[in-house]
Each structure stands twice: as C-alpha cells, then as structure tokens.
C-alpha cells in the first residue's frame, strides 16, 4: 500500500497493466513524452517505448477511430481525450462504431477499448473544461461508463475497464485529482493523503464495473452520487447532521439497481446528485428507475440536485456548482414529508 492521489492511482493502473499485458497501449494528445496535461501517463513512454505510449494528432475523431481499429486488431488501447468537453468530435466513432461493433458483427469483433477523460467542474475551467457529459453515453446501447470518486477506486476501476472486453468510458473528476473536494469553496483544500481511499495497493487489483458502493450507511434518506459529488454529499450531510445513506454509483452503466433498490426500500426517500446539467441528465433516469421500482416505498418525491441548464460559466462557478446548499436543500425537501 502506498498513498496515492488520483492521478498517481490512474498512472499506476496504466503501469500495472502495461507491464502485465503488452497489448495494452496508451495514446492521446500530449500523452507521450510529456505524460499528459494532467500527467496521468507520465513515465510510461520512457518505460514502455513510444510504440506503446504516444502522442496523437489533435483529432479526437482520429484518436477513437484508430483506437477502434487497434482494438479490432486485438490490442487494448487506453485512449485519453484531453478534456471530456472535447469528446464530441469523437462522438460518431464512439456511438456508431465502438458501441455497435460486437452487436453488428454478432460477436465476431469485440473492442477492449478504454477511453479516459478528465471531467467535471470546480476548477474555473469555463465552458469547455468543466462539462459532465455522462448521460449522453449512458443512452447509447453498447457503452459502459465509469466515474471514480477516489484513488483506490480509480485504479481498480481503470484496471477493470482495461480488462473489460467491451468499450468503457472512464471519466475522471478532475476537481478531485489532488484531493477530495467537499464543495465548500472557501475552505482550505485537503490533499488525498488524509483520506483512507488514498491507500492504494501498488500492484494489480480490480474494482468491479457495475457495482456501486455504499459509502455511508444511514436510515433517513438515500443519496445517489458519483465522482466529485460523493464528497460534497458527505460533507453536506455531515454539516446538516442528516443520517443519509450515500451510494457512490461508480459505474453509470450498467446501473447497479440492486444496491439502489435495497437502500431506497429501506430509507423510503431518495435524492440524486450530479454535476451535469439537469434536463436529460442521468439523474432523470435514476429518478425514473427508483420511482418505477420503489414507488410503494417512496414517502416523498425523488429529488434531484444538479448543475443548472446553462453552459458552465467561468467566473460564476460557485453559483453554478451543485454545492452543499443545493444538495442540502434537496435532501431536506426529500425529508420534509
């Protein structure tokens, strides 16, 4: 066990897998010599050669298109999209190609392809360095989507993603690369070092895809969150003194409904939290599922605390970001009746 921040954990997942399996390669803009703008692929080119870790042209479309070809060949590419906001040029290759390959070939070709991308807000990155597009991919049959909330999970989930025989989108909440963020923008930043989930094994292990984690047990209400929001939710309920059960979804799709149902049936109340814009966000799907499957257990409407339906505004970040007040309000509303 070593203490790692999220970047180190992600770097370590690459390293472990590239050492074990020489079909694993890392590619993306600035990923090679420089090791990525967030340094997630640092040292890999030096260690494994530029054959297995290299810079690509600035063409997200080309990155995913060629990575699909490599996966079709039998490699396990781990492709970085520098910011999730820049994944859209690759949308067609992801949706029409990666997602469909196994199906349209009746299993003849599968793609063991991982697409990593720094994701989410909280860093004054403005409209194009802050987005949370997970719900767009959750709607696409054939894609898995994963969002870790801590170094331990990040490494274990990334290894599981790389080993998975299907394409996995792996969104990394960049706000918590260096430390968990509780949403109180005016408090000092805490580094990962103090967090139990920063204890990360150096070698190989996996955290299974499709399994949520109950990160806090509670009786009053179930709060479903993922990524940065897990920490904000925990800080919120602590500040408010609410006995919430907090589920860190970890995998967006396939959804771990068992864990959710069990919890909601126990608490009778549910709040869904995400950074992404509200309308058409993944919260809508979760809310619909919860009320479909737990209707007779629900004592109050399922509430959502989310980003607002505007582009991500640069300087108004702390009015935009779903922080403790927004989440606290939603939880209190769910507890009202």
């Amino acid at each position: 066990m070593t203490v790692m921040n999220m970047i180190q954990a992600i770097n370590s997942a690459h390293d472990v897998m590239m050492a074990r399996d020489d079909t694993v390669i890392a590619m993306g803009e600035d990923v090679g010599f420089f090791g990525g703008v967030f340094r997630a692929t640092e040292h890999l080119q030096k260690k494994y050669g530029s054959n297995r870790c290299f810079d690509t042209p600035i063409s997200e479309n080309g990155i995913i298109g060629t990575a699909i070809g490599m996966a079709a060949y039998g490699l396990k590419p781990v492709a970085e999209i520098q910011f999730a906001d820049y994944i859209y040029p690759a949308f067609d290759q992801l949706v029409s190609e990666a997602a469909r390959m196994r199906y349209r070939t009746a299993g003849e070709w599968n793609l063991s392809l991982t697409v990593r991308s720094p994701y989410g807000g909280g860093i004054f990155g403005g409209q194009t360095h802050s987005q949370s597009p997970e719900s767009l991919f959750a709607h696409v049959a054939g894609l898995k989507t994963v969002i870790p909330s801590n170094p331990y999970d990040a490494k274990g989930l990334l290894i599981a993603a790389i080993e998975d025989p299907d394409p996995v989108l792996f969104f990394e909440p960049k706000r918590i690369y260096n430390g968990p963020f509780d949403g109180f923008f005016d408090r000092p930043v805490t580094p990962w070092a103090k967090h139990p989930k920063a204890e990360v094994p150096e070698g190989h292990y996996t955290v299974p895809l499709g399994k949520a984690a109950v990160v806090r047990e509670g009786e009053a209400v179930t709060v479903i969150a993922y990524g940065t929001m897990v920490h904000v939710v925990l800080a919120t309920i602590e500040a408010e003194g609410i006995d919430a059960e907090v589920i860190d979804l970890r995998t967006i799709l396939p959804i771990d409904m068992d864990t959710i149902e069990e919890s909601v049936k126990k608490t009778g109340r549910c709040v869904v939290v995400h950074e992404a814009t509200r309308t058409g966000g993944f919260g809508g799907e979760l809310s619909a599922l919860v009320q479909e499957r737990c209707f007779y257990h629900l004592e109050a409407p399922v509430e959502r605390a989310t980003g607002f339906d505007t582009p991500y505004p640069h300087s108004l970040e702390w009015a935009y970001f779903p922080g403790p007040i927004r989440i606290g309000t939603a939880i209190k509303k769910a507890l009202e009746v």
Partner: protein
Amino acid sequence: MTSDIERPNRPALSLHVPEPNARPGDEIDFSHIVIPAAGSVRKPDVSASPAETHELVYSLVRVLDDDGNAVGMWDPRLDPDQLRRIYRDMVVVRIFDDRMYRAQRQGKTSFYMKSTGEEAVAVAAAHALDREDMTFPTYRQQGILVARGYPLRDMMCQVYSNRADPLKGRQLPIMYSSRDYGFFTISGNLATQYPQAVGWAMASAIRGDSRIASAYIGDGSTAEGDFHAAVTFAGVYRAPVILNIVNNQWAISSFSGIAGGDLTTFAARAVGYGIAGLRVDGNDPLAVFAATRWAADRARLNLGPTLIEMFTYRVEGHSTSDDPSAYRPKNAGAAWPLGDPIARLKQHLVVLGEWDDAREADLLETVEAEVRAAQREAEKQGTLVTSSIEFPQDVTTMFEDVFEQMPWHLREQQAQMVAELEAKRK
C-alpha cells in the same frame, strides 16, 4: 486598413455551386475526361519517396490498351490462370448482384446495392493482397468476399436476414462482416472504417506483425472528417495501409464536383498530406492489381501508406432505393469511356489466346448455376420477413452481443419481449 462602410469599390461576391455537365434530357458528355494512353505512366521504384509519386496523381495508371494488350511498366505479368481467376470472380460478382437485385425487387429483402462496373476495384485488388491482410470495405466491395472464396450462400443469407444469416438479422442487407475472410464489418455510417483501418495497421506495426490493411472509401465520402483523420494518422505513423478512394463519380445524386472533384483529382489529396499517391484506371483489372501490389509492397517495407484513387464509374443506381434517371442522363453508365472491367479483361484473355466463346459460355453457365444453387440454399433458410412476427431467427438473440455479459436491464427487456410476442401470437 480600409474602412468604407458603403464599400463602393468592392464588387459583389457570388456563390459557385458546381454542376455536372449533363442532366436528364441532355446528351451525356465525357469529353472532359482525360485518358492517358495505357502504358504511358512511369512506375516508380517501390522505395520511392512520396514526392516521386506525385506526378502520378494527375495521370492514370493503365495497363490494358484499347486492343486488349497489357502494356507498359505497370503490367503485373500475371499468369493466365490467375487472370482467369480474377475474371471469374468478377463475373460471379456481377451475376450475384443481378440476382440479389432481382430478389429485392421480388420483395425477398429490404435493400440491395450493386457494384456494376466497379468489380475490378474489389476483385483485382483482393488478388493482389495477402489472404491475411485485413480489408476495410464499403458496401461496394463485395468482390473482396467473392475473391477470397466466402460462400455465396452465406452472403445471400445475410442479404435475406434469414435463419442462417451470420449477422443474425441485425444488419441491413449487404453490410457483410467476416473476420476469417479479412473483411471488416461494413458500417452504415460512411467513412468510419477509414481511421479504423489505419488503427488496425498501426496495431499490426506495433506488434511487429506483417499483415497490412487496405481501406476503401467513396469519392463522396472523402469529405467526411474521418477521411482526414485517417490520412493524417496514416502519414504521421507511417501506417502499413492502402487507402483506396473509389471515385465512381457519384454519391447518390450528387456528382464528384460536390466533393471537390472539379478542383483536382482525389489522388492529389496524397500530395497535400505528403504521402505516396497513385491514380488508377479502376476499370482496368491489371492496373488495379499492379497498383495495389505496389502499395502493398511499400507498406510491407515500412514505407507507409499509399493513397490510391480508383477512377471508375457507377454504372447503375446508388441502391435499390435510387433512380439515377432523375439526376443524370439515362445512358450515362453505358457511355463511360473507360469501358467495362469484365469486358476488358475478357478481351485481354482472348488476345492472349487464353479465352474463347466456348469457355465463356461454359463459365457463364457454371457461375449462373452456382449462384442459383446458392440462392436456392439460402432461401431454404428463409427470406426477410416484414409483416409478421414469425422471425426466422431466434428473436431472443436481439439482446445478445450488446455487451459480452448481458446486464440485468437487457435481461428484463428480453423477458418483456418474449411476453409481448406471446401476447401478439394469441
């Protein structure tokens, strides 16, 4: 900086929208097509620099002359048996196309696309590749499957979406896929296969493998961003890939000018990217073979990609959903000055003394019989069922292969569908 709000000295601009030189009712006119004499084009050494190939992108590699002789440096000097195999495969494709077209018209399937006039582009190229090389075709390279001996019956089963359809009824007719035959799954989305081919080739290079990739794209589809990504990556990493542009001069109803074909050749794209390029008479099977082999040899020597424009003509409609007489003169296909690839290879075989009427009659009869037999076999497995829920396939397979493991939500939906079908059958 001038600042004249009224801009009196500035003439009015106007938009240029390219138009083909003949529309329905007009006389078809191919006088703008420049046809260099067969054999007139230099063949660079296989290790030539890309720049040394660039004069070729403005010419046309041609081997068969008007009299059916193979001439010039590009003559691949194939033995008569191989010529006959190529000939036979092209004939199979044409007859196959005709029968499947008719099957669609008879309501046995939803859709079909022929490759009439473009058979050489697929067949002769496949003969010039290794059997293990991976091809990334569009819907007009069914000839590759034929050349590699893929069972006609299986192709037809795919077209019919029937019980024996290898793709389980999931794909539109003609969207074949066969890993074993090195035929990458055809996508309904144009151009996506191009960067995939480059990625496959890069992977082969990363692994120190010796297999190369060969990709196809239509003239119209070169406008897609995927084309640009593919050629850029191929050049940068010297990917062992052949990038074929099949310029059949039409993209449904728009002519190649709408894709930029009035400005320069499609082969000239190679100059812009600094990679090797060739422009080839796509209706000349020997030229297609020779150019493909040259590009394959380059790729195998780690000299990187070659972009090849296969210059040809789409003789028939775009697909069974299309009527080309709505946008071009009726006889356009027949008037194409570079002739028909099957007729041209036949003439060559005849000139060589390796073919005659008897053999031709024999071949046609055999192939017709073979295709008919395949069709009979295929139809035993059913044809497309449209107004019924008596599916030829096991309908529960619909939920398989979305992922390797079926998640709970798909299992639930599968059960729901089974219940629905029971209800419908009541």
